[in-house]
């Protein structure tokens, strides 16, 4: 219904076009014209699939009336003979801010700021300043003559424009690039809705992270639904109202890279919305997953400049992925086309808009078919925005928006002469520029003076005066219509200038000149030879450009081919089973179908299996890091005291090299936690370190956990004096945060229960934050709580007891040794550091004997990292518990394997070497608790993701690939292509203390 309505609106818009200013008074006599033009003898490219050669296009009143080989031209028509020139539909850009008010984002600088907890937008709008569905591009639009002209010059006739501000950005308007009034320019004032991951001008603290944006958007959709179904009787909310009115319109999501693209699509899936997604130009790096989204893409044409890699040490700053992306970015559109993913092209993201044509031609050189390129700029965007009845092709009834070009639109020497918009002509290059090219005999004052040679193109002729067949002089020449001015110095040394002015007559030139001595003389240039074009190199005929391979993930140590699960027999190893059998010497382990098939002596190898000699080596299950922040795009949503609604699963970064580094240290599974910036943090993600795999391949979705935090971080003790606003500021306040939230969650769960029982009435408002807390109360989600001192640990246990929820794990728990008995009684695990202390007040009484004391009291103890560096030697950290407090070696080893598996409730599959469990295994060269131990290989589900020998080979391959790319860049530099100074992105290391914002700045200040 809504769809039909929007089409109707669009049609109305069209039919009213010629009368758009009916209501306006005129100054002077009415000047109505039919605007009837016929373009004959044209090659009319109707759309990417159809071309009419030698056809006629008839337009009237701003609309196309007829297109075909034979058009009966009515009398009273201006006929324009195009003499074989081309007509193309004018182009469409769907990601534009044309005519929108400037979005001024105050850049945050160093130093801390007082947090802005509430929206600064006054009025009956929603609570979050970054949610602005009430913004209507149609109402915000004011024509911008300069920008319209720039866009027309590039060949555009129509743009979809919206205010690029905020997460929910309101509606977009389909605008024609006419130079007339706004009333005429707006083709559809409410054509689309727009979204992004950027807060824009909002200075409100929430959301401060990508997962916070996801949560906010999801909640917004639920709120809008609730509002429509009855919430409107409880409160007036103009934002929700406006949002509901946008439903059904094409929805556009602006993203910056492949992973935010996938993240956006996932949000849409939950609400039955298929976003049209503007990507970042790196789609080729994850094509399969992107294709699976079924989204139509908007692709930018921004390609990175080459780096100046002349100095080998400076060039070290540039990573292989930067080098490879430089090489492959121009190939992106071609790859996307090859994968049959529908896409439109956009100029957005281009720093210099003049690069548009250059880059599109480069993309074609890199294999993008021309038809695809044309489709991506005309019919496809038109249909995406449901305006294919108005624009995008040359068909009767559509707007007379078209280009007149000299040849194939994408050819290097093509000239766009005119861009007609709504039947109005805009001249870019004079269409009937006389073709003066050729060689002429020059005569001044009736004396033969040499030759005049005119080459180049008719639009841009190049002149040469040749004297005595050898001296070539480039004169200054100005050609205006058919008038020509030529000045030149026959002899440079003498600095004497001859000045000629004249006109075209037949195929000759003649006129009057003044010689340096002041004599006025006649001159002529008589046509003698035709211009012979030196065959220009046709770029399209060049052979396909060679590029390196795409690796997964798209970083150093990535795989050209993903490793596969194998059948492996490991013979004669010392096997740390973590089971009753303990440590078995001279034992074999068989791995099949990703599982441990058998553990025993003298096992025989099934056919087709690989045998590994484990003599003198130790085989263990993979390390599980219970507290990790690797492979994440963000860690803290610190905008509010509780952020139970955010999910770390939304921000998994499979490209983080730390995945590979940790595999090299024997880690196979990591529990990715939210930070400790607030009392109730986000929902954690448990991942397997499948290097090269996708986000969903890595995630273990069954694991449902959540991060809580206590102490100095949540009360913001160490964030400086500006951070004295957010509740709580004391441990006293922290307790009340839990009571407040859990009591609300209880009520919430109750109200849903009541609603579900009676199956009628108005549903309670779905609250994602309380959902997560209700799951805790229902024992469906486990708490991992960041904690240090005994008072707060005791407090949370007592809160949990009184509200009848369970605490699963205390993490850090550096004073766990003081309360180990209480933890044991409640079955709460402790996941701690081996020996950290002294870095802040709350770790003053931390002792390295903590793990041992808790262990001896029967607490399930894990040793974790909270640190990308420490994680790759967690075996060493576990070993310290033997030293400090005498934990048996076998038990110490469990603290980084089986025990975290238990705490994460995955010990049915992970954590020990037992038939039937996942083959997540590490083969060590020595006792894994020794400082000298290092993994020979690390496998996950029977697939080897790290292998010491292959790692060495990889380094060599990388060096070769790197040098190939550097050589290529150097040749580019030698050819004079622009380069940029080397700069590398510093890998961001997350710790649980890192709060995006305040703390990160602090870290940089130090």
């Amino acid at each position: 219904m809504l769809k039909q309505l929007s089409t109707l609106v669009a049609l109305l818009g069209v039919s009213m076009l010629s009368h758009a200013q009916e209501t306006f008074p005129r100054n002077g006599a009415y000047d109505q014209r039919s605007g009837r033009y016929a373009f004959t003898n044209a090659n009319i490219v109707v759309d990417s699939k159809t071309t009419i050669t030698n056809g006629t296009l008839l337009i009237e009143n701003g609309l196309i009336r007829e297109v075909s080989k034979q058009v009966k031209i009515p009398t009273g028509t201006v006929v324009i003979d195009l003499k074989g020139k081309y007509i193309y539909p004018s182009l469409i850009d769907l990601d534009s801010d044309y005519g929108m008010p400037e979005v001024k984002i105050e850049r945050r600088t160093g130093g801390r700021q007082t947090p802005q907890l509430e929206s600064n937008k006054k009025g009956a709008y929603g609570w979050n300043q970054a949610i602005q569905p009430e913004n209507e591009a149609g109402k915000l639009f004011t024509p911008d003559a300069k920008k319209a002209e720039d866009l027309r010059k590039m060949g555009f006739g129509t743009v979809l424009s919206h205010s690029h501000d905020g997460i929910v950005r309101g509606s977009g308007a389909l605008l024609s690039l006419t130079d007339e009034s706004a009333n005429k320019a707006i083709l559809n004032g409410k054509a689309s809705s727009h979204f992004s991951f950027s807060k824009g001008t909002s200075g409100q603290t929430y959301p401060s992270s990508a997962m916070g944006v996801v949560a906010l958007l999801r909640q917004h959709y639920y709120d809008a639904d609730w509002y429509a179904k009855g919430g409107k009787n409880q409160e007036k909310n103009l934002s929700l109202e406006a949002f509901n009115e946008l439903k059904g319109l094409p929805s556009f999501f602006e993203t910056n890279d492949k992973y935010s693209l996938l993240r956006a699509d996932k949000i849409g899936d939950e609400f039955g919305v298929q976003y049209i997604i503007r990507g970042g130009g790196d789609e080729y790096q994850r094509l399969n997953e992107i294709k699976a989204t079924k989204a139509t893409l908007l692709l930018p044409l921004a390609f990175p400049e080459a780096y100046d890699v002349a100095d080998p040490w400076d060039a070290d700053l540039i990573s292989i992925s930067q080098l490879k992306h430089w090489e492959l970015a121009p190939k992106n559109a071609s790859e996307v086309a090859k994968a049959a993913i529908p896409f439109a092209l956009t100029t957005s993201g281009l720093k210099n808009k003049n690069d548009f044509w250059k880059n599109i031609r480069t993309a074609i050189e890199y294999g993008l078919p021309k038809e695809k390129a044309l489709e991506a700029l005309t019919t496809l965007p038109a249909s995406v925005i449901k305006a294919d009845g108005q624009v995008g092709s040359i068909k009767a009834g559509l707007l007379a928006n078209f280009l007149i070009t000299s040849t194939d639109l994408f050819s290097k020497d093509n000239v766009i002469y005119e861009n007609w918009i709504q039947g109005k002509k805009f001249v870019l290059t004079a269409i009937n520029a006389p073709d003066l090219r050729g060689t002429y005999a020059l005569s001044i004052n009736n004396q033969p003076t040499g030759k005049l040679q005119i080459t180049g193109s008719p639009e841009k002729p190049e002149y040469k005066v040749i004297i005595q067949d050898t001296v070539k002089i480039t004169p200054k020449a100005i050609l205006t219509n058919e008038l020509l001015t030529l000045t030149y110095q026959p002899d440079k040394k003498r600095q004497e200038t001859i000045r000629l002015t004249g006109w075209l007559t037949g195929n000759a030139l003649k006129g009057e000149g003044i010689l340096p001595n002041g004599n006025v003389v006649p001159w002529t240039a008589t046509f003698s030879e035709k211009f012979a074009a030196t065959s220009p190199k046709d770029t399209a005929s060049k052979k396909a450009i060679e590029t390196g391979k795409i690796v997964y993930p798209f970083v150093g140590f990535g795989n050209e081919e993903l490793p596969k699960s194998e059948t492996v027999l490991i013979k004669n190893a010392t096997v740390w089973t973590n089971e009753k059998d303990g440590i078995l010497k001279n034992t074999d382990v068989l791995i099949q179908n990703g599982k441990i098939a058998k553990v025993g002596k003298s096992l025989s190898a099934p056919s087709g299996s690989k045998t590994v000699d484990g003599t003198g080596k130790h085989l263990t299950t993979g390390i599980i890091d219970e507290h990790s922040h690797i492979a994440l795009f963000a860690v803290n949503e610190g905008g509010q005291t509780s952020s139970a609604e955010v999910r770390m699963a939304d921000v998994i970064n499979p490209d983080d090299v730390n995945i590979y580094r940790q595999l090299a240290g024997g880690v196979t599974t990591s529990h990715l936690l939210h930070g400790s910036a607030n009392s109730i943090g986000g929902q954690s993600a448990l991942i397997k370190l499948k290097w090269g795999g996708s986000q969903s391949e890595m995630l273990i979705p069954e694991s449902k956990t959540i991060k809580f935090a206590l102490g100095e971080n949540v009360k913001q003790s160490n964030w400086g004096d500006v951070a004295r606003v957010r509740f709580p500021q004391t441990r006293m306040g922290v307790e009340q945060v839990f009571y407040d939230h859990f009591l609300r969650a209880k009520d919430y769960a109750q109200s849903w229960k009541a609603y579900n029982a009676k199956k009628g009435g108005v549903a309670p408002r779905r609250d994602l934050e309380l959902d997560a807390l209700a799951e805790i109360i229902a024992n469906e989600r486990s708490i991992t709580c960041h904690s240090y001192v005994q008072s707060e640990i005791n407090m949370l246990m007592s809160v949990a007891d009184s509200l009848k929820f369970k605490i699963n794990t205390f993490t850090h728990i550096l004073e766990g040794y003081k309360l180990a008995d209480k933890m044991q009684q409640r079955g709460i695990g402790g996941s701690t550091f081996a020996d950290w202390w002294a870095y802040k007040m709350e770790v003053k009484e931390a002792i390295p004997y903590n793990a041992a004391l808790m262990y001896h009291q029967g607490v399930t103890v894990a040793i974790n990292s909270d640190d990308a560096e420490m994680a790759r030697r967690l075996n060493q950290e576990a070993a310290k518990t033997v030293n400090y407090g005498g934990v048996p070696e076998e038990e110490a080893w469990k603290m980084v394997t089986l025990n975290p598996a238990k705490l994460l409730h995955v010990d049915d599959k992970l954590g020990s070497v037992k038939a039937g469990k996942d083959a997540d295994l590490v083969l060590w060269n020595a006792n894994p608790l020794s400082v000298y131990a290092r993994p020979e290989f690390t496998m996950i589900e029977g697939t080897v993701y790290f292998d010491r020998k292959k790692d060495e080979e990889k380094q060599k391959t990388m060096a070769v690939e790197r040098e190939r790319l550097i050589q290529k860049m150097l040749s580019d530099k030698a050819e004079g292509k622009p380069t940029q100074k080397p700069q590398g992105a510093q890998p961001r290391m997350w710790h649980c203390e890192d709060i995006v914002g305040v703390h990160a700045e602090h870290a940089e200040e130090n």
Partner: protein
Amino acid sequence: MKLEKFNILNRAALAVLMAFAVQQTHAQNVAPALPQTKPIVLTGATIHTGSGQVIENGVIAFDKGIITQVGPAGSGNTTGAEVIDVKGKHIFPGLISLNTTVGIQEIASVRATLDFSEVGEVNPHIRSLIAYNTDSEVIPTLRGNGVLLSQAVPQGGIVSGSSSVFYTDGWNWEDAVLKKDDGIWLNWPAFLARSFNFEDFSVTMKRNENRQEVMDKFKSVFADAKAYADVANPSPVNLRLAAMKPLFEGTTNLYIRAEYAKDIVEAVKFAKEAGVKKVVIVGGDESYKVASFLKENQVPVVLNPTHRLPNRVDENVFQPYELPALLHKAGVKVAITYSEEWWRTRNLAFLAGTSSGYGNITPEEALQFITRNAAEIIGADKQIGTLEKGKHASFLVSEGDILDMRGNDVTMVFIKGGKVNLDDKQKRLYEKYKTKYSKN
């Protein structure tokens, strides 16, 4: 007005906290070792001398704080000596932890306990010597893992100040110090600068455009200092320049913190041209790129913690672990340290252990990174660094290999012949809570 009140309250709260911390410090650290009163002989141990030699079933004898004999079973004089049988155990020279803030940093988040960074840019006259707090609760925890010597190093500014090397035992700084004012520390302006984007919180590395300015400042400071040093009795006295005089006499080190290869080359060239006699590169993440240059110029390298991640995403995953061995094999003198860290230095032995496991060198070679090489770099190799006759009887007895978590179990420590009490606050808390649970 309101704000001011708030601040006062806040300060008051902090003062209370501090008073509490200080009180505890006084209450808890054990008494330092008393001077050696009679000869002692340890027998039966495997002695790792620190110079690469291993003596199975060896004997070590010492008197008045000085080693009198190191040799095989049966060697040496035991008359009148206390003979201690340490059969099956291992003896190592006291580990030396350079480049730390032990004694001048207590709790990182509490400003009042931080004494390592002075205001001002050029502070050669600032001395860690007199700020070193022997009552720090961190210090006893280091001895327990074999760290018997620690260099307290001022941080900050361009010229940070002067370091001193202390025993991890002593009544006060005068008592604990082994080497006073052993060197001046300088922060070389990095070739690459980090720039932080407050919009997306990313960090970008690019050329440091302000570098030349800082280098010019160095040059003029050092030129002035050299000229000042040439005057016998300069007047007026300039504390800063006076502090730099020993650099030109070769009696103290110039420690230059530099990470990138180009920085290292320029720093060394600068120091030589300025007339500085002894230069040490500190940090040196990229020192492996200029190993031959360092060897030629006989410049030792004090590495920052090698338990770190590679600096670049494409770098060999194990590069930091392999780094000390790479330099060692190239003929560069290397020490491994825990720069700017304090409590973590108790893990110093494990940095060396890792460098052996990943760097393809023997544990005895790796041991030198934290014993002999460190002693030579600070110019105290006559007293410490190896177990040899005539040197300080400052060593430890461990149940096993000190470089390995599986062996690092220190049961006995002697500092200048005095037997050190290995108790610390953490052990006392351990005992306290063992008591709690024994009642269950």
